[in-house]
């Protein structure tokens, strides 16, 4: 029994990225102005500079709001007023070759500066909008979408 416990503990020790895959933050909030919140499982959660952001979280702003996230791979993403963006997927394990960053602007405006994933594996970066998808071959752009269009998520 003791031995099994020990191997379980060892497994936890040596596979931290594997064991905590779903609970690892993908980034944190770096700038924040006016009304701006992280939405997690459909609930607004406490949002301040430094708040950790996870895969599947959304960021939403009011008429006076803006918010920016810095991802673990140095990607920077901000949204302006009356905007909403979803972090659909973020995988950043260069050693294992697992790289992916998929974000979706539901409505409003967004600015984006691609990071290490964009350098190592540009084809693993996708920025979606209701009307078109953006594939990234480097660096900075900004997007505005009318939304909400036909779909709700």
């Amino acid at each position: 029994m003791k031995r099994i416990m020990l191997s379980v503990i060892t497994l936890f020790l040596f596979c931290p990225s594997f064991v905590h895959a779903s609970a690892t933050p993908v980034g944190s909030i770096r700038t924040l102005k006016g009304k701006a919140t992280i939405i997690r499982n459909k609930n607004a959660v406490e949002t301040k500079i430094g708040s950790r952001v996870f895969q599947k979280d959304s960021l939403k702003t009011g008429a006076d709001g803006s918010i920016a996230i810095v991802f673990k791979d140095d990607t920077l993403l901000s949204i302006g007023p009356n905007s909403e963006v979803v972090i659909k997927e973020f995988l950043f394990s260069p050693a294992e070759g697992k790289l992916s960053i998929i974000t979706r602007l539901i409505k409003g405006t967004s600015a984006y500066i691609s990071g290490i994933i964009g350098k190592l594996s540009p084809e693993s970066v996708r920025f979606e909008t209701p009307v078109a998808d953006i594939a990234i071959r480097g660096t900075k752009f900004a997007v505005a979408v009318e939304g909400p269009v036909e779909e709700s998520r």
Partner: protein
Amino acid sequence: MKAGGTLFLSLLTLFSLASCANKNLVVLLPGPEGKTGRILVSNKGGTQLLSEPKQATAIQSQTVSPAIPFQMTDEIIRATYGDALTALPLSPTHFILYFKNGSTELTEESRKLLDEVLSTTRYRKSTDVSVVGHTDRVGTREYNFKLALGRAELVKQILVSQGIDPDFIDVTSHGKDNPLVKTDDEVSEPRNRRVEVVVR
């Protein structure tokens, strides 16, 4: 023919100026180091490549191809994206601190660099600092996992002792699995004995 094209672009620019808050627009901008990348804007209708600074495309719907790219003026960029662009933070800064062979003792040079890590963290009021420990490929995985963790923990301790909130610092160990310089197993390599710090 060329004049016609130019006129068309200007008309589109005027059009988007008139209704810039309610249009689907993508613009490519120079990156933080001044270089401009390339993006592909695609939907069911087609694809447009943007490759010049401030080149933009308007998108009517999912089934109509993104429009022929046009040059967006600074005024329209500001009017459309001003708040989002202002909200963008600085790009994170990376540091590499090196360690003496098989130990958690920093090299002289890296000890000095640690001051810069501290001042950058303070200057930015950073709330998100990653500290990742690494080793060279001499020894077992278990031994190196612990050694790399010890190196990372030491860096964290120093930052905390200088007043950085421990909750802002995220420590991990990659042991011998993520060398900076690829070597065979059991090769001693000073450049792999390191802690990588990212100040966000």
